[in-house]
Each structure stands twice: as structure tokens, then as C-alpha cells.
């Protein structure tokens, strides 16, 4: 298995605070990798730099063997790297169906095709079916529950047939049934060949689903390995329980 994503000595400083500090890590193709760490350890900042939302102060990011440091988020998305946000971000004024369609078909010429083109519609229908969102397809996204919105955001990034999906706390703020649903969808998509990198606080969820686990503390990687080894690692215990 080769590395689909590798982060090389990346740093981000916010007004004197080293949010991400000379951090290096890699995600192997075909894994569901977890990225955990205490609050403020730099997980989201790292996500933002990987996906092109924040420029890194130094260091490099490579995706699928190509250097993508400083790439635009849209380009990365089109290249097969997509993400969700901690607070599910969907377009509230668009319908559920449109929220899916907007995430697909980004060639210039497609701008002048129908709002919901037949080919997009077919793909979207499959996803709506898969995520059991078909009954609410014509509702505005604003009218969905928070859990449904998270599901919708996840479904939407799949419209582009990504190779790597970064999920930022997929289970935060949703009910236990929805957590299981989320887990099922991740597994099934993983089987069909998508690699995942997941930031998550729910440790039982991580233990069930992810391998390997990367632990971040104060902006750098302090552990990477099997989930079973995480809890016994002294560095990790130190980071979580406080020095």
C-alpha cells in the first residue's frame, strides 16, 4: 500500500501560537485513518491546510504522488480530495437534490446546461437512495435535521467520485442511530475503494472503524499505529491526561 496523502514538515502559526508545528504524517491508500488529539492540538488547522483552505507557513503536502502545496480547494476537489466540515455546511436555500447536483459537474460548459442535468440527476438519485434521503429530496436543506444535514454533506462530496475523503467530526452533535448510519456508509464506501481520514472525538467510534490511528498533540504527530496500541502509549496518555 502506498501513501495517498503525505504531509511533510508543515507549520502554521497564528499570532505567535504554533497551531501546527513541523508536522509530518501520511495516509495510506485503502485505509480508514483516524486523526485524534486533545482540543487545540491542530487537527482542524491541519485539515484546512491539506484541503487548501489555509496556506501553510512552511512544509509540503502531496496527494496521489503530486505536490499540491498551496492548491486551491476546488482543484483538489476535482483531483479527488474532498472534505466535510465540523459544523455541517450545506446550502440551506437549495433543495437536497440541488445540494448534491452542485457538487458535481464542474466543467465550464456544464455551467450552461440545465440546473439539474439528467446525468447529474441519475447520480444524485443513486446517492439519495443509498443515504435514504430520497423522501426529502425536494425539501430545502434548511428544513433537515442536523444529523440529516451531516449525512447530506457527506453524500454531496461523493458526487465527485473522490479517492480520499476527509471527515471533520462526522458524529459530533448527532444521535446514536445516526452515528451507526454514518458508520455504515463509511464502511460501504470504504469497501468500494475510498480512503478516509477522519477527525473524531468519539473513541469507541474510532476503535470500531479506524486503522491506523494518528494522534496529534500541540501541532505535531506523537503517535501513529494500531488502535489497540493507542491507549497504552505513554505519550498519548500524557497528552490527554495532561502533563
Amino acid at each position, binding site marked *: 500500500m502506498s501513501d495517498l496523502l503525505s504531509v511533510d514538515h508543515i507549520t502554521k502559526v497564528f499570532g505567535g501560537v504554533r497551531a501546527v508545528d513541523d508536522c509530518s504524517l501520511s495516509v495510506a491508500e485503502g485505509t480508514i485513518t483516524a486523526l485524534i488529539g486533545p482540543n487545540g492540538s491542530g487537527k482542524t488547522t491541519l485539515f484546512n491546510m491539506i484541503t487548501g483552505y489555509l496556506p501553510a507557513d512552511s512544509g509540503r503536502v502531496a496527494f496521489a504522488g503530486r505536490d499540491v502545496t498551496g492548491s486551491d480547494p*476546488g482543484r483538489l476537489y476535482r483531483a479527488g480530495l474532498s472534505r466535510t466540515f465540523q459544523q455541517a455546511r450545506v446550502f440551506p436555500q437549495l*433543495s437536497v437534490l*440541488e445540494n448534491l*447536483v452542485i457538487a458535481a459537474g464542474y466543467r465550464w460548459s*456544464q455551467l*450552461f446546461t440545465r440546473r439539474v442535468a439528467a446525468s447529474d440527476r441519475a447520480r444524485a438519485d443513486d446517492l439519495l437512495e443509498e443515504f435514504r434521503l430520497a423522501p426529502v429530496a425536494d425539501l430545502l436543506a434548511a428544513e433537515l435535521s442536523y444529523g440529516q444535514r451531516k449525512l447530506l454533506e457527506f453524500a454531496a462530496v461523493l458526487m465527485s467520485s473522490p479517492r480520499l475523503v476527509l471527515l471533520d467530526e462526522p458524529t459530533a452533535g448527532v444521535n446514536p442511530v445516526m452515528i451507526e448510519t454514518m458508520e455504515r456508509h463509511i464502511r460501504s464506501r470504504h469497501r468500494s475503494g475510498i480512503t478516509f481520514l477522519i477527525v473524531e472525538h468519539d473513541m469507541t467510534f474510532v476503535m470500531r472503524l479506524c486503522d491506523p490511528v494518528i494522534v496529534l498533540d500541540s501541532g505535531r504527530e506523537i503517535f501513529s499505529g494500531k488502535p489497540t496500541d493507542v491507549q497504552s502509549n505513554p505519550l498519548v496518555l500524557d497528552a490527554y491526561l495532561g502533563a
Partner: protein
Amino acid sequence: MNRAGLARGGVFFALLVALPFTGLAHWQLNLLIFVLMFATMSSGWNLVGGFAGYPSLGHAAFFGIGAYSMGLIFQGHTLGSGYEPFFLLPVVGLIGALIGWPIALISMRTRADVFAIVTITFLFVVQTLAFNLHSVTGGSQGLALPTPPFAEVHFEWPYYYTLVILLAVVMLITYGTIRSKLGLSLVAVRADEDKARGIGVRVNGVKVLAFAVSVGITAMVGGVWAYYETFIYPQFAVDPLITIAIVLMTFLGGRATLWGPVLGAIILEGGQQTLAYNLGGSQFYLVAYALIFLVIMLLLPRGILPTLQDKLRMKGRARRVDATGGTGSVATAVRPGAVASTQGSGA
């Protein structure tokens, strides 16, 4: 939109085409010409200010650029049939769009408020240039165009019908935008640009395109205006009040809707002429206009059409809930109304 919408458009334009034949007086046609100008410009502004959510405050500059372009193209020419200026309108529009393109490219990279700052600054720069570049614009002396050779009786007709065509074009563009993926992209940009960028939407492309088309249309109206007035004074050609008027009309009627800007233009340009007529001096007029603006912003920030749509939707919802004995699931009760109120169907 559907068959009813097409019928509405058909009736509206048939009415516009027929109006001059009802024997309107010159001042009435003159009023209509100004209503059409503002309806066209507001619809144009709506593409970038309404759909993309980037409030341009510099459109008056492009009105002026269009006017001066037209004036400069016809310097020292004599007119044959008098229709040449109308055929050259696309060129005027292109000039406006080409000037707008780099400005949008630079100023839209950041936030909407910086964009507004750049556009309003551009407006004042163009205004100053219009006054100071005597060799080109004639400064405050103004710039004369050749006198059109149209017969007195039907003098307004060519301008009127040209503007009807321009309005039809911009409304078709708007309609096409709403119905296409371009419109979907613009709604996404307006709602959450960062997110849109992250799911591959051509954020920069659609914004700049919307701006270029929008200012191109504005420049064309400026061209028609210059030929209609046959004399360009800088204080009228590059007037911040034009910006304010078209923004206000769009807000009053309803942003990001097809008919909102047109409705706003009909109400306000009509009202404006009345105000100007009754209040005489332009100073009361400025105060009155500013007050109307403030009242609309505070009481009806979403505009007439969206507010009406919401009312209808709530009524529809209530009726449906009643029909199911008040126990119908929320989802089914909300659905039809919800769909009708998406940005896309906009009136």
C-alpha cells in the same frame, strides 16, 4: 418557471410593444423610456448584486463609460439613417465588460465588502476623470453627439423599442441563469462561498462572468441614454444616484428574482418622476430618496416579491395542514411550498 411564467412574460412584452400605439404623449413615452432604462439596469445589477451577492456600488461608472463610448465613437460623424448607434450597442457593451473584467478579477478575490469599496472608488475615479480629461470628454462643457434624424412625431420610438429589446435580452439572460447550473453556482457562492469553492464550483469564474455581463448591459443602457440626450454632461453620466436607484429598485422588488428589479423600477422610477415634479428642487428630492431607501432597507429588506412568496407559502402550508386535520407530517405539508420558494423559481 412554467407555462404561467412564459405567459406572464409574453403578455408583459406584448403590452410593452403595443403601448406606443395607444397615442401616448411625448412626456409619457419619455417616462417609459426612463422606466425601461432602469428596469434593464436593475435586472443587470441583479445578476451580480442579487444572485452572486456581491453588491456593486460602481454601476453608474459603467453607465457613464457606455455613454462616453457611444459619444466618442460618433464624434465627427454624420448620421445616415440614424440607426447606426443602435447597431453599435453590442460594441459599447463589450467595452464596458472589458473594463469591468480586470476590476472584478482583482476585487472579487477577497470579500464582498472590499468589492463594494473598490467599485464605489472606481465610480468616483471615473467621475473625476470625466470632469478632468477635457481632451476626451470635454470636461464639464460636455460632449455632443450627432443629432438623430428621426421625425418629431415618433422621435422616442427607436429608443423605446431598443430598450424593450435590451430588457428582453437581460430578462432572458436572467431566466437562463436561474434555470441553468450557472444560477445554481451563483446561489452557492452567495450562500457560502468557501464551501462552494471546496466542492469544485467555479467560484471565481461565475462571479467575474456575472459582473462582466452585468456591467456590459449597464454600459449599453448608457449608450442609449447618450444618444437619446445627444449631450453628455459628466455630472449626469456618472452620477452616484444612478447606482443608488438601481440598487434600490432591485432591493424593493426582490433580489435574485426575475421580476423583482422590473417591478422595483416601475414603482420607483414612476415615483421618482412624481417626486422630482412635485418637490421641484433636487435637494428635497435627495432627502426624500434617502429616506425612502432607509425605510425600505429597514422594513422590507428582502423585497416585495420574496415577501409575498413567503406569505403565499405560509398560507399554502396552513391550508394543507388543515386538510389533513392538522396531523399531516410536517415534511409533506411543507414540501410544495418549500420547492416553490427556492431561489430558482424566483417569481
